[in-house]
């Protein structure tokens, strides 16, 4: 039996019963999509078309369609890659880390956050593949026996680690997400009235019957999946950071990178979760499920991780100064005052300063304000990657190689288009799958019996308080000794 706290407020509002949850969460699946959904889906499809066009153009013309050059070889594309991988991290953090810490407020948001992870990693992977220039040989980083003089991949290279890390991350997240979906897919199956729905949800529900034996095993594997996903999520962005940190480029060659990247990933991921959930709770009318308390909790995480990355920025500066390495020192002075100074200060402003508003409770509980803040966080984190990549590269070791980097319109098209790709999947997800984990949510709803219990305990607690107060009144100061 679950323990029901007599003091804490409920995590979802509106006094929902089990069947309310089923009805309301399956409503978007069982009914025709709303106007807001069509507008959102239509817009994302348009932007997706832009992505298709820009990517196809790049494939046909080659990487020359972009503004990068010999000095700045990793530019927009890798910035976007790191940005999207970072976005993905909040999903696993919410579903795995918060599960291990028994943070039950995650239950309203974990499904959509996990979906976000999967779609963000798809976006990230698309950047890697297009940066290869020859996407048809994208399988080369996989260690396969081959006909090129027995060449294997170099296992000392963090780029190869990254291939393994990202693909593991994607597949494990997908498995975790799917396993979590099965009971809810079964719910949709058992409510289905149309033949197609009955067939497809029945197909993917894998014969789920709600037996206690199955639930027991389900709980066991959920816990283990969470336990293995937790180090996984930390490892993935650590490895992404090693793509930079194991090189010798001043500004990249720092040991702070793994924790700094992980904090940044969680920060940007939560920013994106907030953007999505504020839209989802409006479009799907889930305000009772994703309450302002949920937003509050997420804003606290945003503030904490934003401050952490801010600390990392300052630490980098300090380390550069303290190391006495003039190249390192130059790299950081150049970031803040060089030709790309504006990107540095956008990063500082959006990531370190802006989230400090979340010290105020008003800021943490006002959806429209959080929405604006979440966009600011996304912009800031995109610029962080831009700063790391472009400002570190554009002043090469040889001053004759010094150059500037300007993105082309095609690169902007791919960046904007990737949001289309992301939201296209997300809107489909909102239409065809339960956007909130019904089975988990039902386990935290108080039943009539539960509410009676709660009243009982609250009364008991109040009586105890009364008794304690009475004791205090009669005994006077002696009670303070306890």
């Amino acid at each position, binding site marked *: *039996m679950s323990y029901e706290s007599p003091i804490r407020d409920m995590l979802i509002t509106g006094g929902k019963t*089990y*069947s309310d949850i*089923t009805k309301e969460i399956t409503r978007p699946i069982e009914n025709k999509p709303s106007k807001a959904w069509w507008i959102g889906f239509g817009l994302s499809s348009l932007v997706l078309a832009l992505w298709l066009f820009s990517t196809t153009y790049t494939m046909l013309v080659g990487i020359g369609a972009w503004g990068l050059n010999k000095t700045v070889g990793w530019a927009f594309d890798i910035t976007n890659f790191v940005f999207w991988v970072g976005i993905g991290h909040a999903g696993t953090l919410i579903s795995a880390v918060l599960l291990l810490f028994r943070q039950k407020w995650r239950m309203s948001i974990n499904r959509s956050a996990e979906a976000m992870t999967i779609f963000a990693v798809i976006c990230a992977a698309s950047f890697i593949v297009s940066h290869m220039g020859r996407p048809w040989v994208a399988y080369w980083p996989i*260690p396969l026996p081959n006909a090129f003089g*027995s060449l*294997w991949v*170099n*296992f*000392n*290279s*963090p780029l*190869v*680690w990254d291939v*393994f*890390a990202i693909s*593991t991350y994607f*597949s*494990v997240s997908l*498995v*975790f997400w799917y*396993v979590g979906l099965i*009971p809810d897919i*079964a*719910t949709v*199956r*058992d409510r289905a009235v149309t033949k197609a729905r009955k067939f497809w949800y*029945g*197909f993917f*529900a*894998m*014969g*789920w*019957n*709600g037996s*206690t*034996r*199955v*639930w*027991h095993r389900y709980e*066991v*594997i959920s816990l*283990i*999946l969470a336990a*293995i*996903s937790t*180090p*996984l999520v930390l*490892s993935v962005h650590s*490895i992404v950071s*090693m793509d930079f940190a194991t090189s010798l480029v001043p500004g990249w060659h720092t040991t702070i990178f793994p924790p700094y990247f992980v904090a940044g990933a969680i920060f940007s991921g939560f920013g994106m979760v907030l953007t999505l959930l504020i839209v989802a709770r409006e479009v799907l009318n889930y305000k009772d499920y994703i309450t302002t308390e949920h937003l509050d909790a997420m804003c606290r995480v945003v503030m904490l991780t934003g401050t952490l990355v801010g600390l990392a920025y300052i630490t980098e500066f300090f380390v550069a100064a303290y190391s006495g390495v003039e190249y390192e020192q130059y790299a950081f002075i150049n970031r803040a005052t060089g030709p790309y100074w504006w990107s540095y200060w956008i990063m500082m402003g959006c990531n370190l300063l802006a989230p400090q508003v979340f010290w105020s409770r008003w800021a943490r509980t006002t959806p429209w304000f959080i929405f604006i803040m979440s966009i600011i966080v996304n912009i800031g984190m995109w610029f962080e990657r831009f700063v790391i990549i472009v400002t570190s590269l554009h002043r090469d070791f040889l001053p004759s190689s010094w150059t500037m980097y300007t993105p082309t319109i095609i690169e902007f098209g791919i960046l904007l288009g990737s949001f289309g790709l992301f939201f296209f999947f997300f809107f489909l997800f909102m239409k065809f799958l339960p956007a909130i984990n*019904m*089975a*988990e949510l*039902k386990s935290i709803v108080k*039943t*009539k*019996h*539960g509410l009676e*219990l709660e009243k009982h305990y609250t009364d008991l607690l109040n009586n105890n308080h009364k008794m304690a107060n009475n004791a205090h009144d009669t005994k006077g100061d002696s009670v303070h000794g306890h």
Partner: protein
Amino acid sequence: MDTNKVILGIYEDPDHIYDATKKLIHDGYRVRDVYSPFAIHGIDRVMGIKRSRLTVAAFIFAMTGITLALTLQTYVSFFDWQINVGGKPFLHIPTYIPITFELSILCTAFGMVACFFYVNRMVWGKNADIIDIRVTDDLFVVAVDVIPNKTNIAALSELLKSKGAIEIREKEFED
């Protein structure tokens, strides 16, 4: 199973079905299974379900992943074809750690979930042998075996009702 017939007690509240199951087991009835829309914590222990050995499977798969990854990397970069990249050592275990870690996680996740599907006999497209269509929505069902000439159906129904069952009915399995 020596019987195909079960009595179903249908409940609205997880606490009630928990109490009912506890009482049923205590009184010596054979509880076939309890079906619920979400995991009722503790009821597995009441029913005497042994702790799943999927944890052991997970460990074995993790070890498989580690072995696989180390073997692959050592074979490729040391035994099969050594490539000199900036004079780095050919056999360098520390740089193998990230991939070994990732592959162990990958094997654990896929292996364990595959075992989970196997032990539950779950497969894509399988028809659900669902006991009552409402157990995936808002009701909780306990299925008690009716052993011929032994189970007193009237007493059983009375017990189920006393614990708050909203509906009691019989069901026969075909197999």
